[in-house]
């Protein structure tokens, strides 16, 4: 089963994303901070990571950058969740090596299709 790591400090969003992805047939591990996300991703690399940009301590961008530097997680698909649609943020996200981003408020259905699209792109 395809495993997805979800990191968001907002409980509502974390639970919602996890719920939606589990429903779509993925195996979901959810954590509430950047450090935990990094640890989880490096110790037991999932097939994809959904990262909230704004998290206490380590931000999603930081985690993204770290993951890109590690050999084991270099090619790991990453989707960022950001509350800001401002250009800068998106640029920074892609700059840090993200594959896609989703702006909050988000459509859960769209989230699933983005996840599928990114995973499909990885397979080819």
């Amino acid at each position: 089963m395809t495993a997805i790591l979800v990191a968001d400090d907002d409980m509502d969003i974390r639970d919602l994303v996890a719920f939606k992805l589990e429903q779509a047939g993925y195996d979901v591990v959810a954590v509430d901070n950047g450090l935990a996300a990094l640890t989880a991703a490096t110790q037991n690399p999932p097939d994809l990571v959904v990262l909230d940009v704004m998290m206490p301590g380590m931000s999603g961008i930081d985690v993204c950058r770290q993951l890109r530097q590690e050999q084991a997680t270099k090619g790991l698909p990453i989707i960022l969740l950001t509350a800001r649609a401002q250009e800068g943020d998106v640029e920074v996200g892609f700059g840090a090596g993200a594959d896609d981003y989703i702006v909050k408020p988000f459509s859960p259905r769209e989230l699933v299709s983005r996840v599928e699209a990114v995973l499909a792109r990885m397979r080819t």
Partner: protein
Amino acid sequence: MTLAGAALVALLVMLFAALVLGGLIIGGRAVRRAREAKRAKLAKPARQLLLAIAAGDDDDAQVEQLVRLPEEVWLAVEPNAVALLGKVRGEAHALLVDVFERRGAAWRARSQLKRRDPVARAMAAEVLGNLGRKDALLPLCDLLSDPDADVRVVAARSLGRIGDAGATQPLLATLPSRRPVPAHVVATALTRLGTEAQGALTASLDDPRAPVRATAAEVLGLIGAVGATVRVESALRADPSLEVRISAARSLGRLGTRTAMAPLLDALDEDKPAVLRAEAAKALGELGAVSAAPVLTELLADPDYAVAHNAARSLLRLGNAGRAALVAAEHRAHVRPRHSAEPDEGPDPEVLLGAAHAREALAAAELDDHRKQTVP
């Protein structure tokens, strides 16, 4: 009664008060804990249901179940439901709204709008905005002149969320009133009213009240109302209020139409206020018109920090011509003036200042380029 007797009484009163306070602390904490535990217990099964709806599962049975939840259970999950409402879009949002509607939330909120407690009014306004009720437009517009400042702000925000262009005039009208709503709140709400609001916004550039004109100009830029460019240009040229001219300059940068060059260049005149000049210098960069390069280069040595700084950053945005101008300005610092009487005399301070601004901008650009390259 003697003084000592009074003190003794006071001591007893205090002892009693201390006991009461102790009871209040312990009791309050115990009650709060119990309430939280109960809420969590009640909310647990309902939460799964809520997540399913928020995930956009168009399952009528589930919606029905949520709608039929006993009041007590619903109240336990309601804060989560409200929070989710602001966090999801699309079909998931529509479903959630449906649940709220069918539970009578909109009806209840409307009945609270005239309550004496400002918190109740604000909460009601918030709910109506969350649900995007178009029929709440009029009562919310009424709340824009509420005596309580927070209620006014919530009403303005909610009108933005509802997104009906009919709110344009009432929102703008709050700005110069005795009970104002902060301009940035009004502007943010106005940006969400869609293209239909453009007409009213453009017309408001002729409003006799300066705060209205300023915010109208600001919002026209934010929503990219290119059709209004000419009107905003004349505001920059001729408006008697500095505040309006500054907004207009900023807006013209956002709109990015080349015709704005002329009024922006005029706004750079030395007799104009520095704040306006700084804004115009910035806007010229956003237009990206290469022909602005000579003027911007001159501004590099401007005694006003913001003007010179913005001019340098704007030059960067003019492509190669702008960069070349910056490189040249930077270079001038190292050249000894040819006609100088004193052979050892360095360049004059103006040249050095311009060069310093140019150097800063070029270094920033180099860093940007470097960061883009390091990205795989």
